[in-house]
């Protein structure tokens, strides 16, 4: 927006910019990517348009995934095609063969969907010639895929990630670890229909992999926010932290500005909310100003959080039982996903309002990739944990938080025997903490489930998927808009393009 000549003011409630994309020194000398922890989907056009490399964006490689197994064995995959082939072959020779083909077909799928990431969703109910044209273009795109790919895409949109993967593979650690991409941030199990789409959503980064869009941001994910902020400042935008917005001021259906929590009023012709729809429509506005069907849709919009995060400061490198000592495996992801039943059982507990005692954990050691994240020889460990249901059956999150942290550390200790001895500091974040700290309703990391009923022209509400709202001048641009969550920048970019288009009329 600033690049297009608009006078832009960014208001952030917290002392640090970035929302869930922040790095903070929670424990002296150790920088945590407190919430989001890897980047895979940041749109290359944003990197180019905002000149992010010039503003400090460096994405370091994160190329391996280790799945340690309870029996002391492990599955290790990295960018070495044939070493990965041999590693998978130890579990299933057929799977080793299928792995390459799977990668190619998922490339096709990601490519098919990539087109959608870059467009504003058309409104299928509109008879406006422009919308019809957009719909026709979309239909042409999908029909152009050919029957095989279209069938696969429909399967991806509707199946469970485990079932989808079982069409390719037979070995449990491989299916489980691949299917875990289908549950990340989602209140679904690997056998729940719909999880295959989440798998694809996470796979999307692969297509731009050659351009190194997938990896670990130098300085933690906050490095991305800082680069974007620096770029924005260079284009003339102003940032204010500690400036929470209390309400959006409107008059006669037209936005007039915002009122801050401290009572200050700021006038503006355009206000863009990157908050989730519950805050955007129900908190910052008086719902009575809005059409009933929108209010109902937003109330029904599923923002139920299911993930937690445990950040650890470590006195030394973790020593894995399956691969002792230092090694390249510590520079990649460590996935606690030994088999599909394990993940499904973790989900079972969450369904009934308990956190998983044996959770799925996606571990990365940012300090192994970027040594500036911790003092020399010491490490930070980021543990993304599933499942931690927002609503607990017994007790509250402040009461249960540390027990949840214990479950995570105990689970990890089965695979990392020295873990408990080297923990210097532990930060445990439940969905409730996520909601409290950065305002994501329900603590949902995508600002709303990536379920079929909440995607594309239904995200966040039917008829309001074009980033506009019923209030003139008031727009939405968060992860709850198309194309959804992850550090993509895509909703913001698409929203900005729509806003600029309106400005021209």
């Amino acid at each position: 927006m600033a690049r297009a000549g608009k006078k832009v003011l960014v208001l952030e409630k917290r002392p640090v910019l970035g929302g869930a994309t922040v790095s903070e020194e929670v424990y002296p000398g150790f920088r945590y990517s407190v919430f989001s922890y890897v980047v895979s989907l940041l749109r290359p056009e944003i990197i180019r348009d905002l000149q992010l490399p010039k503003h400090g964006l460096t994405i370091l490689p994160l190329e391996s995934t280790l799945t340690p197994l309870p029996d002391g064995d492990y599955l290790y995959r990295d960018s070495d095609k044939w070493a990965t082939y041999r590693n998978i072959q130890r579990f299933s020779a057929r799977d080793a063969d299928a792995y390459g083909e799977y990668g190619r077909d998922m490339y096709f799928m990601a490519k098919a969907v990539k087109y959608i990431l870059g467009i504003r969703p058309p409104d299928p109910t509109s008879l406006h010639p422009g919308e019809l044209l957009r719909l026709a273009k979309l239909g042409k795109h999908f029909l152009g895929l050919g029957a095989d790919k279209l069938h696969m895409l429909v399967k991806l949109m509707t199946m469970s990630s485990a079932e989808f993967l079982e069409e390719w593979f037979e070995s449990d650690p491989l299916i489980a670890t691949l299917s875990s991409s289908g549950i990340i941030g989602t209140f679904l199990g690997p056998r729940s229909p719909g999880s295959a789409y989440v798998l694809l959503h996470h796979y999307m980064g692969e297509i731009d992999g050659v351009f190194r869009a997938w990896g670990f941001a130098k300085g933690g994910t906050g490095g991305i926010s800082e680069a974007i902020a620096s770029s924005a400042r260079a284009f003339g935008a102003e940032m204010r932290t500690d400036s929470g917005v209390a309400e959006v001021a409107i008059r006669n259906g037209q936005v007039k500005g915002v009122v801050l929590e401290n009572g200050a009023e700021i006038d503006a012709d355009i206000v863009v909310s990157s908050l989730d729809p519950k805050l955007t429509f129900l908190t910052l506005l008086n719902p009575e100003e809005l059409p009933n069907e929108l209010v109902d849709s937003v109330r029904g919009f599923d923002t139920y959080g299911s993930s937690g995060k445990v950040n650890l400061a470590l006195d030394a490198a973790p020593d894995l039982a399956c691969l002792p000592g230092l090694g390249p495996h510590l520079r990649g992801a460590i996935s606690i996903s030994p088999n599909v039943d394990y993940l499904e059982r973790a989900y079972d507990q969450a369904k009934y309002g308990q956190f998983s005692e044996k959770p799925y954990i996606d571990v990365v050691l940012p300090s192994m990739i970027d040594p500036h994240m911790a003092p020399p020889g010491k490490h930070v460990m980021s543990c993304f944990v599933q499942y931690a249901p927002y609503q607990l059956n017994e007790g509250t999150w402040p009461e249960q938080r540390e027990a949840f942290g214990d479950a995570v550390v105990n689970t990890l200790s089965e695979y990392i025997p020295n873990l408990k001895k080297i923990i210097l500091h532990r930060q445990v974040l439940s969905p409730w903490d996520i909601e409290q700290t950065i305002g994501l309703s329900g603590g949902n990391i995508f600002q709303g489930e990536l379920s079929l009923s909440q995607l594309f022209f239904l995200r966040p509400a039917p008829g309001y998927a074009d980033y506009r709202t019923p209030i003139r001048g008031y727009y939405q641009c968060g992860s709850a808009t198309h194309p959804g969550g992850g550090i993509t920048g895509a909703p913001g970019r698409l929203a900005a393009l729509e806003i600029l288009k309106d400005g021209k009329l």
Partner: protein
Amino acid sequence: MPIGSPFHSRTDALCRTQEWREWSGYFAAISYQVSHEVEYYSVRNAAGLLDVSPLFKYEITGSDAGQLVDRIMTRNIGKCQVGQVVYSPWCDERGKVIDDGTIARLGETRFRVTAADPNLRWFQDCSSGLDAQVRDVSVEVAALALQGPNARNILKQIFTKIDLDRLPYYHAIEAKLGINRLEISRTGYTGDLGYELWIGADNAEALWDRVMEAGQGFGLQPLGLAALDMLRVEAGLLLIDVDYTSAQHARIPSQYSSPIEIGLGWAVDLAHRDFIGAEALRAEKQRGSLRKFVGLEVSWEALDELFDEVDLPPQVAGRASRMPVPLYAGGKQIGQATSMLFSPILKKYIALATVEAAHSQVGGRVEMEITVEYERKRAEARVAKLPFFDPKRKKALAHS
């Protein structure tokens, strides 16, 4: 990281250049000596020994093994006798080539198939309804190629109890090294007289040592991939993912090839057979193929002239090049040359190429892109018959 093949202790000790390439996850010597031409000439003039263990090897057994192999291969495997070996491509349902390799019929119901890429899943998936088992024996079977006019004489030093003189081209025979069994097939990838030896990985080193020892006095040299690449181009043998793209790797329609399009029409037996891809290939045969695989001989006079413009003698790569270059006819691009080299034995600049069918007649003229001092030029080339080099000894029986 690549790993060593069962011969690695031996090849590593001999590879003075430390020039290695990864071949299916294994270390493979590119050139043992600084001059790879020594290795090249060893095959054309004496003998070379090449570690081909990184090939994928599958054993297919069971009462319907023959039926399964016949279902997969474009060649008629029903005609393949025990002790015979055939070369064949195999296709997907659309008649597009997945891979190519040799099929050795080791017994009535036992076959060994070699492949460039993993094919276990494909072969197994093709076996539905048949009593046939496919087993990946890539790791347990080590393989050596002994190639060149002296290959037979070297083997005769070691295997005195078998009649190698009468082993016909593309046939295999069982032999023993001490108490250990191995198979010797009269096959190879050099277009010369040659054999491939298939042995349990545990006995690989002993075999290497025996062959190297017996090769003393016969000019035997260890052979690296740089020389092999030259030899196979002279022999008109195509290489997967260099001269064509496997249907398993292709991403866009133009990357798929039928066996007819890559010069393997002779290995497609459509009569009364129902192999995978047959229907599509029958249709292609009727319709005519759009592309053809050809050999090219680049005019030396044309090269001379182009380089003369910059006062240089023709600069041609000493090794085979795998950098594809466009081909033109009538000012329009009509294909690409995918492998090329100056053939030391033929003294010709030759290339393997894919061209539009209309330009595939032997003797026809095309133009090939040549870079002269960073400038792109075009040199005249003529379509040539493949193979470029085809000595009688390749197929002949001894003393015949």
